[in-house]
């Protein structure tokens, strides 16, 4: 044995280790492959040896070779051997190799299950760690199923190092074995509050990954994440959470509203660019998800845009890039805010970094308007000239075309300019996008009738200079434009001034070097040209000229007849014969032009891509019915050609077939329509399209307006398109002048009346009238069009399986398979004897053990019920949290908990304890009541302070405990609370009803926000609402800078009949110890069929002292300290005749007066609140038979007495 060992180590000495291998490879640069194959042979020998060290060494070398691209899967079994070595050194090598080369297809992987399980439970944390790391790379569905429970147990390992790894690997397990998600989720959630920041971060990471794919299932975690966001200082965690919120907000706009403020704070406060950037991104997502324009939203957008500008202006290219990327997101919803930074974005076009230039180009696309299109394109054209490298130039070219042609040339006011831009673009050498330019030329020429004359002249020029464009046909992308040029000149030859010259240009021998499809178009269109020349000559009686042109055709056409391209050849020979015939007739002096021109009679009209769909199907015509009997499936046909004898079967198959084919037909029809849509030459069957338009309702035909073109065609010394920019400016200037004149007239007429109204007619870009009208039918979708969202989901998407409702209670069948002696059947269908997963995680307490057996069944049932209830609550909780919770506490107040409703427990250990206890209690309930009960009660009270609402609710099922339960904010109750609204009526008239609520602002000690809901009660449209108040010395409405105290603040929306919306107004105040009243007026315009009238509504805004309070939770010990400190003034009240229950009473105080319950014992409760200026307010509420007494303590006696008075009023209504 010893000898063997010695032998082994000597063997080892002569083996190459990894370093030797690397060195060897470096020394054999010329014959590397040969050397490596030699090494692999050696490795194979080494793997055959018994010595594990030798094997490990070999495997280590294999891992290196794998990196170089060598397949090492043949050594999978040896890798497993090394993995199972007892020494950590070898184990690690084995797992590393496995993680590099094992995958689902590796068949020996199933041998690893037990080894991995053994390593997972190893006493050495690094053995476990290495196994987890390896597993993260090669986990298969089988491994995931078999090991899920082990990994889940590790999530509660004592070492945070293992915990965080286990948490992360659970995500991989979920992916492979989705059934494990629900049982493991509670613990994963628990880990969000792990004391170790690394574990917490890992849990956030996993939940974020999960939620990104199926966000709706994780909405209920929003409060928890919200809390983490306001408390965490780890930027990694914050970034993840903020990204997660970005994914959640589209599903729940209310969440977005809640997020804006803390995010804005973060944006202001953070110095980490990465965090800032993600905040901005999520704010953008929130703003996109919120449709209504609340006043402070424009501020948020401004803030985002400003911050992004800083990023873009930064010298760091990365920040610049990201800034532009985020900017493009804002652009989609708030183009105006981005447009003001046009200068910056144009600057980025000059950047040396191509990625940044491309981003800037993307942005430009969304920024164009009628006003700036020419300018932007001009800049882009300069860049095209300067651009190095064809990729970027091509990108510029496509962008220019995209920008100009977007939404039916919406922004083009002058098409002559556009045509000249297109012509200029043809001078680009070596572009791939010739066909794009060609398509644009065709599209514009066909659709903009007014431009045809100009287009034709330009195209004729192009044809004349064809030799320049087609000079090097190998890079022939650009010669595609000749296709368009030839077609336009032919089709619209009546506009051609020197048709002869163009025809000659088209007949040049050089043309035969062009690609076939272009030649074909040439041939076809030269006949059109010829026809129009012929007609012209005949009409003017120049017979000789007419014959000359025929002769020219006959002379030149043969070069096309010889073409190798079939299409060209066919067309050319046809046409040649035709022209020869014409020549014969011409010799006989028969007038032919009319007949020739008739060949090409009729005008092409643009057709909307979907126009065909609009044609109603005649009654009785079933398009899906077979015209002929369909041939049965070819395969079955082949097998049994005599189907007549299997009549029954055949009929059966025939029944099924139409169904399949219907889909197929629909698909094909769709494809065909697509094709037609993309084909500018698609002509409808009807010869007179104008008539058709009238026949078919729904297809609008926009009349073409002819506009006189008083534009000189050439300005020497200037590129073509530039001159149009100048001319366009002049034209606009003229237009503006005219408009101003008109306006003045209007003003004179309307002076005195509706002077405000007139100001609405400011110069907007929409006022720029285009020089040409685009003749186009708007694209319409048929009513029965299917939404296509369902199609883009990949059925094989691994994340789809994780779309699991996590709030549903766990069913018995869902628990994870538990390790047991290999017993295959049991593993696959775990029987009901196995303990619940959740139970396993708990250490059962002694007393529980006593009647454990007896209680198990009952306990389980109960548990399930509770979970179900909890589940119901969950939804409500979220609603509650989203709707009524006060503004979140800032991070500077560690004590405060931002959410009242679904406040989450601060310390995770406590949660666990509580849960355990609850269960204990439940079990006790079912059995006998233990004498230890009292003790526990006591302990509970302590924990209670940080208790979650839903947990409390759960408890309230035990009636005997109810009296000692503490309440949080009075929301706990065994009976449902009556609905309460903090919104009070502000004013009302037949048109509008206003209700309002006042909330203190935590960030600013002298501001409150008044939220006013405007409800339109009339059947008219309400607009131009403006709210104004008469400021007092103490309280002032916050107005935008520069406006005087008499100006109102416009309400940022209009109200259609029956609609309500909310707007917020900020007020500043100096002293808050007294209630305040402010008078105000809402003015608005009522617009209905009869006209519009101005209306006013007066109101009084009541700032109660309670509205200056902010619900702030307080722990009982802190509360006691506060009371002891002795710097508080005291006052008390007593109200008689109270009939409502104590719970209701507390709830009312909490809700209307913004208090929170600190502690509650029997019919006595202590409550706490804090004013925006930091006054502490403590209350002791006692309930007698029919009365309630409230003792209050506060830093300020006036505030306290005012508060108590208000409270008295509230309570006396009860």
């Amino acid at each position, binding site marked *: 044995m010893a000898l063997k060992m010695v032998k082994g180590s000597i063997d080892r*000495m*002569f083996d*190459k*280790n*990894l*370093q*030797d291998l*690397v*060195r060897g490879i*470096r020394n054999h640069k010329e014959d590397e492959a040969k050397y490596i194959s030699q090494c692999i042979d050696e490795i194979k020998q080494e793997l055959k040896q018994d010595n594990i*060290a030798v094997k490990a060494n070999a495997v*280590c070398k294999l*891992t*290196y070779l*794998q*990196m*170089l*691209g*060598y*397949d090492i899967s043949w050594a999978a079994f040896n890798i497993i051997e090394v993995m199972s070595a007892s*020494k*950590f*050194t*070898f184990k*690690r*090598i084995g797992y*590393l190799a496995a993680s*590099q080369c094992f*995958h*689902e*297809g590796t068949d020996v992987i199933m041998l690893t299950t037990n080894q991995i399980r053994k390593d997972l439970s190893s006493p050495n944390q*690094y053995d476990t760690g290495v196994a*987890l*790391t390896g597993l993260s790379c090669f986990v298969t569905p089988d491994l995931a199923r078999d090991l899920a429970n082990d990994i889940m147990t590790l999530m509660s390992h004592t070492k945070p*190092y293992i915990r*965080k*790894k286990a948490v*992360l*690997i659970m*995500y991989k397990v979920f992916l492979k074995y989705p059934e494990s998600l629900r049982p493991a989720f509670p613990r994963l959630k628990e880990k969000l509050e792990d004391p170790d920041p*690394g574990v917490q*971060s*890992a849990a956030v*990471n996993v939940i*974020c*990954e999960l939620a*990104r794919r199926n966000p709706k299932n994780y909405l209920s975690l929003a409060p928890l994440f919200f809390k983490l966001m306001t408390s965490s200082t780890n*930027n*990694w965690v914050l*970034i993840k959470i903020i*990204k997660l919120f970005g994914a959640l907000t589209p599903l729940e706009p209310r969440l977005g509203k809640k997020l804006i403020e803390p995010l804005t704070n973060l944006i202001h406060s953070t110095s980490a*660019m*990465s965090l800032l*950037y993600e905040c901005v991104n999520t704010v953008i997502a929130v703003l996109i998800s919120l449709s209504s324009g609340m006043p402070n939203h424009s501020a948020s957008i401004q803030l985002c845009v400003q911050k992004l500008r800083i990023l873009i202006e930064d010298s760091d*290219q*990365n920040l610049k890039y990201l800034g532009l990327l985020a900017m493009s997101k804002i652009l989609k919803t708030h183009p105006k805010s981005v447009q003001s930074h046009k200068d910056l974005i144009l600057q980025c076009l000059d950047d*040396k*970094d191509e*990625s*940044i230039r491309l981003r800037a180009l993307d942005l430009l696309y969304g920024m164009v308007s009628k006003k700036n299109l020419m300018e932007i394109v001009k800049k882009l054209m300069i860049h095209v000239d300067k651009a190095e490298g064809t990729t970027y130039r091509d990108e510029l070219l496509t962008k220019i075309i995209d920008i100009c042609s977007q939404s039916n040339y919406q922004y083009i006011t002058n098409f002559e300019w556009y045509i000249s831009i297109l012509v200029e673009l043809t001078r680009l050498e070596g572009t791939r996008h010739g066909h794009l330019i060609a398509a644009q030329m065709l599209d514009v020429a066909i659709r903009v009738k007014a431009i045809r004359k100009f287009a034709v002249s330009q195209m004729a020029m192009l044809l004349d200079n064809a030799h320049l464009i087609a000079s090097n046909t190998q890079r022939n992308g650009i010669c595609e434009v000749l296709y368009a040029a030839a077609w336009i000149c032919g089709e619209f030859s009546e506009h051609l001034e020197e048709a002869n010259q163009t025809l000659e240009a088209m007949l040049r021998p050089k043309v035969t070097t062009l690609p076939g499809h272009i030649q074909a178009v040439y041939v076809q269109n030269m006949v059109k040209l010829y026809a129009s020349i012929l007609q012209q000559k005949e009409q003017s009686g120049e017979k000789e000229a007419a014959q000359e042109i025929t002769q020219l055709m006959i002379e030149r056409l043969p070069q096309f007849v010889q073409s190798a391209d079939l299409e060209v050849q066919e067309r050319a020979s046809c046409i040649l014969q035709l022209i020869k015939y014409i020549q014969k007739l011409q010799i006989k002096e028969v007038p032919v032009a009319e007949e020739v021109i008739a060949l090409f009679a009729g005008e092409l009209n643009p057709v909307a891509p979907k126009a065909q769909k609009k044609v109603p199907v005649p009654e009785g015509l079933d398009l899906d019915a077979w015209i002929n009997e369909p041939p049965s499936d070819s395969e079955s046909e082949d097998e049994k050609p005599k189907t007549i004898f299997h009549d029954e079967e055949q009929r059966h198959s025939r029944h099924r077939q139409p169904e399949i084919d219907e889909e197929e037909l629909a698909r094909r029809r769709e494809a065909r329509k697509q094709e037609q849509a993309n084909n500018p030459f698609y002509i409808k069957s009807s010869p007179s399209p104008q008539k058709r338009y009238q026949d078919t309702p729904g297809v609008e035909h926009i009349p073409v307006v002819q506009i006189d073109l008083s534009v000189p065609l050439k300005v020497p010394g200037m590129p073509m398109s530039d001159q149009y920019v100048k001319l366009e400016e002049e034209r606009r200037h003229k237009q503006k002048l005219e408009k101003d004149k008109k306006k003045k007239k209007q003003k004179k007429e309307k002076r005195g009346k509706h002077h405000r109204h007139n100001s609405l007619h400011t110069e907007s870009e929409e006022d720029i009238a285009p020089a040409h009208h685009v003749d186009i039918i708007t694209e319409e979708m048929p009513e029965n069009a299917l939404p296509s969202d369902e199609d883009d989901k990949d059925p094989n998407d691994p994340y789809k399986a994780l779309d699991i409702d996590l709030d549903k209670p766990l069913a018995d069948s869902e628990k994870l398979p538990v390790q047991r002696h290999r017993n295959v059947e049991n593993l696959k269908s775990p029987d009901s004897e196995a303990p619940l997963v959740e139970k396993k995680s708990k250490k059962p307490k002694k007393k529980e053990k006593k009647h454990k057996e007896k209680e198990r069944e009952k306990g389980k049932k109960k548990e399930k019920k509770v979970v179900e209830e909890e589940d119901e609550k969950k939804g409500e909780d979220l609603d509650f949290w989203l709707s009524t919770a006060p503004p979140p506490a800032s991070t500077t107040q560690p004590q405060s908990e931002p959410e009242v409703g679904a406040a989450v427990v601060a310390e995770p250990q406590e949660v666990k304890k509580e849960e355990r206890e609850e269960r204990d209690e439940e079990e006790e309930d079912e059995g006998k009541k233990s004498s230890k009960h009292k003790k526990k009660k006591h302990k509970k009270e302590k924990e209670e302070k940080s208790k979650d609402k839903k947990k409390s609710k759960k408890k309230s099922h035990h009636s005997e405990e109810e009296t000692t339960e503490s309440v949080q904010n009075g929301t706990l109750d065994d009976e449902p609370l009556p609905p309460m609204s903090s919104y009070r009526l502000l004013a009302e008239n037949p048109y509008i009803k206003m209700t309002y609520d006042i909330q203190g602002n935590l960030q600013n000690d002298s501001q409150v926000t008044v939220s006013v809901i405007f409800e339109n009660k009339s059947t008219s449209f309400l607009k131009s609402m403006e709210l104004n108040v008469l400021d007092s010395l103490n309280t002032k409405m916050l107005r935008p800078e520069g406006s005087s105290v008499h100006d109102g603040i416009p309400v940022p929306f209009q109200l259609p009949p029956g609609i309500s919306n909310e707007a917020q107004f900020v007020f500043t105040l100096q002293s808050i110890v007294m209630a305040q009243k402010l008078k105000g007026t809402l003015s608005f315009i009522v617009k209905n069929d009869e006209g519009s009238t101005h209306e006013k509504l007066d109101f009084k805004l009541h700032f109660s002292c309670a509205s200056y309070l902010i619900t702030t939770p307080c722990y009982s010990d802190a509360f006691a300290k506060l009371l002891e400190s002795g710097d508080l003034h005291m006052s008390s009240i007593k109200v008689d005749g109270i009939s409502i229950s104590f719970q209701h009473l507390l709830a009312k105080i909490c809700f209307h007066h913004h208090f929170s319950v600190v502690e509650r014992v029997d019919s006595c409760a202590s409550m706490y609140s804090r004013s925006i200026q930091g006054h502490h307010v403590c209350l002791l509420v006692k309930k007698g038979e029919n009365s309630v007494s409230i003792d209050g303590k506060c830093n300020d006696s006036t505030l306290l007495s005012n508060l108590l008075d208000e409270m008295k009023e509230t309570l006396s209504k009860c």
Partner: protein
Amino acid sequence: MINAILVFNNHGKPRLVRFYQHLAEEVQQQIIRETFHLVLKRDDHICNFLECGSLFGGSDYKLIYRHYATLYFVFCVDSSESELGILDLIQVFVETLDKCFENVCELDLIFHMDKVHHILQEVVIGGMVLETNMNEIVAQVEAQSKLEKAEGLAVTGPSRRQGGLSAAPSRAVSAVKNINLPEIPRNINIGDINIKVPNLSQFM
């Protein structure tokens, strides 16, 4: 999620390849090549993000890279990762390497690929970020090499700066090797091991 972590030198030679999804070796090499060509044509003063199209399969993926002296560190990530965060992570990874190897250079990565992998495994596992605190990462790496040393069996040979228990036998081994044994002459190569890349200061 991080989809892949690639380290290669200025000539595109892979130094560390870690894919978090299984791909055949040829595909991996193809991706490394294409990635190399993508980053090679970008000079050092332009942004470190790069859209890689469908190179890695999904359209969602983005390349985030840093270039240190002779090495490119490229992370391929999807949209759930913060771009700037990953840039920081690369920095953390490289600084950790620097600490663990004491002035890391390309040669360290060449000869100790396994060790680099072990360090990486303390930073990222299964495509998810495990730890971003450098001290914690270094502590775990060192604890594990200690464990390895205690076992005294380091197969790959200790890093050249390590002394202690395990270094001795290994030195003996290389001493034996350096005697001209006729069977394995090709193994003898002394020159390489002490060559350092001159441009060290840039390599953080």
